[in-house]
């Protein structure tokens, strides 16, 4: 009796050992452009062998020669199992190339194909049924790219048909997404804000006989702020662009450490003034470093390769916008308080000391790769 035979086997079943291997997945990338869809489909050789047989000589290993001999069969098996519809019309598919790729769990056949639709695509309906009949645990992992935006989806037997609206994935929306990220980053990037503030704090004052005096009018203060902000913006835009376009790259620990050092130095300069009039030069020099910092944030957000420039400009504008908001909140307040002892002692002097201390901790953390503060 079957029951008796397999009893021990079931008892042994302990889920800790479950899914010891990566399950069967295929990786499908579709790029839509105009009326055509460019496809790349990575299907595990294990799966293809099970479905249509690849091991020509039966020796248990699959060679490139054996795979090559089955290329037509692979296309004939796979392509009908992916139906692409646009505006209720089928877009016929055609294989264009066969390659190989290694994924973390073994070798995959890479099937490149193209689907031609009759009209430019505004929406696409996909029906995926590869392997579902022989392995219902199989999943198709889709990456759909359209005008620089990317969407992902998973096909499984109970979700084999999915529809994607393409029109809504507009470039403009993506542009604003990056702008918003830029604003957000400058607001939560304390090191950038503190660097800027350290340079701006003395803008409503000037040095006379080793003492701080309040500027007589709004114009000189505004001019000073403008010079500093412009220099900082120019500098970090240059390096942000260079790093994002891959022209220059620096190790991130070095960049982060240098950013912390720049905050320390600019705050120290308020306590022991060395550079008085030409703080915009400091802003420019260190701005170059801060640009690399912005670039690594942008890289972490994930860059669409075909809309790199758009992401770059959007993000940069966001950073400038966020920065402008901070400056316009700071300047009137500082100008209003410039005559008070409170501003000179508590804000400028004590504030700079605190910034120096905080940034020194950052510097130590980043140089030695430690975690001392909770943020």
């Amino acid at each position, binding site marked *: 009796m079957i029951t008796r035979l397999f*009893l*021990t086997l079931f008892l042994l079943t302990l889920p800790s050992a479950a899914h010891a291997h*990566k399950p069967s997945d295929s990786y499908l990338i579709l790029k839509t452009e105009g009326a055509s869809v460019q496809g790349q489909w990575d299907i595990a050789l294990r799966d293809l062998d099970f479905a249509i047989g690849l091991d020509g000589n039966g020796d248990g290993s699959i060679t490139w020669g054996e795979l090559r001999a089955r290329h037509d069969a692979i296309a004939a098996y796979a392509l009908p199992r992916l139906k692409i519809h646009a505006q209720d019309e089928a877009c016929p598919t055609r294989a264009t190339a066969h390659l190989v790729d290694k994924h973390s*769990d073994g070798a995959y056949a890479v099937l490149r194909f193209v689907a031609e639709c009759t009209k430019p695509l505004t929406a696409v309906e996909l029906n995926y049924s590869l392997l579902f009949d022989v392995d219902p645990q199989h999943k198709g992992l889709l990456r759909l790219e359209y005008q620089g935006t990317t969407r992902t989806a998973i096909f499984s037997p109970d979700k084999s048909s999915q529809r994607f609206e393409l029109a809504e994935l507009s470039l403009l929306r993506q542009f604003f997404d990056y702008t918003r990220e830029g604003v957000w980053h400058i607001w939560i990037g304390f090191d950038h804000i503190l660097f800027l503030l350290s340079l701006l704090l003395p803008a409503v004052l000037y040095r006379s006989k080793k003492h701080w005096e309040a500027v007589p009018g709004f114009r000189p203060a505004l001019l000073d702020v403008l010079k500093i902000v412009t220099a900082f913006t120019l500098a970090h835009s240059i390096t942000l662009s260079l790093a994002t376009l891959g022209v220059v790259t620096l190790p991130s620990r070095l960049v982060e450490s240098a950013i912390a050092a720049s905050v320390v130095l600019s705050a120290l300069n308020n306590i022991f003034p060395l550079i008085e009039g030409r703080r915009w030069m400091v802003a420019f020099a260190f701005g170059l470093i801060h640009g690399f910092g912005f670039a690594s944030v942008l890289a972490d957000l994930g860059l669409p390769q075909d809309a790199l420039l758009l992401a770059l400009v959007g993000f940069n504008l966001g950073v400038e916008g966020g920065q402008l908001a901070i400056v316009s909140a700071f300047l009137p307040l500082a100008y209003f308080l410039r005559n008070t002892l409170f501003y000179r002692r508590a804000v400028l002097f004590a504030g700079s000391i605190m910034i120096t201390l905080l940034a020194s901790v950052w510097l130590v953390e980043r140089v030695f790769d430690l975690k001392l503060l909770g943020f």
Partner: protein
Amino acid sequence: MVYAAPFIPASDAEVLEQLPFKASDPTTRELRRMRQELSESPHNLDKAVALAQRYYRLAMADGDPRFIGYAQAALAPWWEMDEAPVAVLVQRAALRQYSHNFNSALTDLKLATRLEPRQGTAWSLLAAIHMVQAEYATARQDCEKLHGLASSLIVVACVATVDSLSGQARQAYSTLQKAYASAPAVPANEKLWILTRLAEMSDRLGLAEEADAYFRAALKLNIPDAYLLAVYAEFLLDEHRHSEVIKLLKDKERSDVLLMRLALAEKAINAPRAAEHQAIIRARFDAARMRGDKLHIQDEARFNLYLLNTPEAALRLAQENWLGQHEPSDARILLETALAAKDKTAAQPALYWFTESRIEDRHLEKLVKAVRGLK
């Protein structure tokens, strides 16, 4: 995500993939015959269940979830039926619990035992699932139901396994030892199961030498079994016998669970392939996340704790894992991550379970003491 660059291999002779079986392997032939027969009459219940069981056994042997998918495909005509035939209910439950769908597995098994109270396999699966869920009293009742349905040794072993987790470790251990020693002609697969249990029990009791001897005896049976390799590797890691782990698992990289143990051992002694294996594991976790899998959480917690050194992230994963299953290894990872993250509150569920179950386990006892000592 691994989207390495697709390529065209240099020569036809280049081997791309190794299949689990050669065409001449008896297993391949047997499976082909069974599949052929089933495809001629896909609604033949006996043939479908037999093929599903054959695939399930393969999945147990080396942990490849593809076989679970193939087994499910064999049961396709009945898969969606609530009141499927008892043989299907039991097999479906086995497949479902493999994918951690414990509740639907329990529903199937309860129905199966109501329709056929002498369904031994169903009772043994119920016992296994209830143990995983730390429902020890219920699991014990399930074991008792096996009287007359399984060999008396299996019944003793089932009860002893439950008892060893719920406050009678020493007595359960010696009962099972005696029963095993005096049992006549035990089939090899039962031997494997009982030796593995004895090894685990003695390890929990701190009898490392005895555990080692049982593990070796189990390995000597030469029955491929992913679970045995995983628990023995864990035992060796605890004993700091890292090079033995590497020897045991060196050609088992395909299995995620075993590769993880291999990488832990390699990291401990700075073995040459440590970094490479760590990168592969990370890629597999990424792939699992893309496919929406949550079956790896316990190991992902371990990966974060020991290979990435990110205890907070590891703790979150261990907590999530604890929601689904309460085996000693689940408690252990929760305690280990809570200890590393210095978060006593997070460890509370495991501390409660430890007291409530009255489990005796030298690893857990040490950890519980350390966690209780946290401020």
